[in-house]
């Protein structure tokens, strides 16, 4: 079995296990929180493709997520589009935006990319929040084109409420699980394919990779477009799942939460983002009682992980395995050299 087949099998196995959760757990809170885990995990798995595998430190992921969410909400709110149609449209719009962003970032490197993408996200946020002119005037009050500070609500549903009655959240759970599973399999295929190797080569030694005929232009646009699709889709699903979208999706603490997931789990590893997302969801749950101290805890986790384990928990684990195999390999007596 190749590494790619092994990883995909593992992924399907985990998904199968996760599919059992709503059957076992009667607690609605567990199921809905796990649905949120699926959304965040989808975003970080795809962010990891850009940041970890491609080595491009883009901070636009939450903006792409927001584009998916806002497109879905606006289509539903203004045109009454069915959510099943609006979700992929949101994802495709995120792809278009991301490819344009990839073009803009082409000549930049390192922290400049982070600054540019942060600025772009901030422009989107400010345009939405500062727009106070009424676009329509529904009974609930003035509504700017992009929802303003208030955002959108009541724009549509996936129809699980009619289908499953009070158990509608279970339907959403499986949609979330399906999105994460597909996003994860795509990420594995990309990482374990010639394309993934090209990304890593361009990340590790751009000059040598270029000399080997790898086109940075082509690959960078690919990676920006590909990861934006699932990020946008996750955003669309987030909109449908929570039933409300507001400028809070742009907030810095959201970005920080997701960034911490990648860092804690392991940048550039296949399983790192998922592990990180799982751990941080638990950590957040544990720190829920602490109120404002939660942010201090998140900050500490981030700093400690960046300083002490740059490749995250999965990286640490891989190093441990390598160290052990190296030790056992040395334990085998080397063939004695013939003395001349």
């Amino acid at each position, binding site marked *: 079995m190749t590494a790619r087949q092994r990883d995909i099998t593992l992924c399907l196995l985990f998904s199968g296990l996760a599919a059992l959760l709503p059957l076992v757990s009667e607690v609605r809170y567990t199921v809905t929180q796990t649905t949120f885990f699926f959304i965040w995990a989808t975003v970080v798995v795809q962010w990891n493709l850009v940041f970890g595998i491609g080595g491009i430190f883009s901070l636009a992921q939450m903006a792409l997520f927001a584009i998916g969410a806002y497109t879905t909400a606006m289509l539903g709110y203004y045109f009454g589009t069915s959510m099943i149609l609006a979700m992929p449209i949101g994802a495709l719009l995120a792809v278009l935006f991301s490819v344009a962003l990839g073009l803009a970032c082409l000549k930049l490197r390192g922290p400049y990319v982070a600054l540019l993408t*942060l600025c772009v996200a901030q422009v989107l946020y400010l345009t939405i929040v500062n727009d106070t002119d009424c676009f329509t005037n529904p009974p609930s009050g003035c509504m700017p084109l992009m929802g303003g500070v208030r955002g959108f609500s009541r724009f549509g549903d996936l129809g699980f409420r009619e289908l499953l009655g009070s158990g509608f959240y279970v339907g959403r759970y499986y949609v979330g699980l399906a999105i994460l599973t597909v996003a994860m399999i795509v990420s594995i295929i990309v990482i374990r394919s010639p394309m993934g190797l090209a990304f890593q080569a361009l990340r590790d030694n751009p000059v040598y990779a270029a000399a080997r005929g790898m086109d940075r232009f082509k690959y960078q646009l690919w990676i920006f477009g590909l990861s934006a699709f699932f990020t946008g889709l996750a955003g669309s699903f987030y909109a449908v799942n929570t039933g409300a979208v507001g400028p809070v999706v742009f907030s810095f603490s959201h970005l920080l939460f997701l960034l911490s997931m990648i860092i804690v789990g392991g940048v550039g590893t296949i399983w790192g983002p998922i592990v990180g997302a799982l751990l941080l969801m638990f950590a957040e749950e544990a720190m829920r009682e602490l109120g404002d101290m939660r942010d201090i805890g998140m900050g500490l986790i981030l700093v400690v992980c960046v300083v002490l384990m740059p490749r995250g928990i999965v990286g640490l684990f891989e190093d441990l395995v390598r160290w052990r195999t190296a030790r056992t390999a040395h334990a085998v007596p080397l063939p004695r050299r013939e003395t001349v």
Partner: protein
Amino acid sequence: MDTILQILASGLTLGAMYAISTAGLALVFGAMNMLNMSHGAILALGGYLSYFAVGGMGLPAPVGVVFAVLVCAAVGVLIYQIVARPMLRSANFETRIFIATIGVGVILESIILETFGPQPKPQPVSMPGSLTLAGVHLPYQNLMILGIAMLLMAALGFALQKTRIGRAIRATAQNRDAAQLMGVRIGYVYALVLAISGGLAAVSGITISSLSSLLPNMGADPMLKAFIICVVAGLGSLPGSVMAALFIGVLEAIVQYVFGVRFSFALLLILVIIVLIGRPQGVFGRVQGVRL
């Protein structure tokens, strides 16, 4: 005519405040390739420390300012010792320090929030009264900010050009290994640069809050603007960033007058995006010998 002068006057005040906070960022980036994302939180800390010393303990204003500057400088040194130093030689230093300092910023900001609460507070260090010159209204506070900024920038420029330690900082910025081989103590230079940057952030926090008010997250906007200025000038170029700060300040005042306050920041950001795409090394940045 009066309107133009008035816009110019308030633009220069804005630019002077930006210059103080930008100089610190540019210095740190120039010397050690470090984008300090906790700069905004240090700035807020400086403002609150002077509030605590002057408003809470009743110390005279200059003492409060010195106290804030010293504590923030110490925070800079701590960031170097605890966060930056362990990863200084690692391959992805630029990205890792960027992320780590985001964490530091969040911690500092949350501590401020816990200690002082979320309500806006007035900055006690300020100068009341104003002066009307040729039809232009000039509060003493704005004049003082302009004066302090010019004084600080001149002192920083002098220190960098003429003193022994300034030469060490510039040598480190140009080539770390060569500077080290010439006997420059790199660790000392880095700690010093972060201390200067922290101190400047404190001054900038006090001046900014004296015109508006103190809030735990007040540093976020000035920091983003300081980054914008750094980028427009070319990261790490100190004289360029001071010029760019004044330019951006005046530009912001004009945009606020012509288009209204709510669009000014978004327009600034669009300006940066255009500069970054068109001239990635900034307007004043030297084109480094980056292969590829």
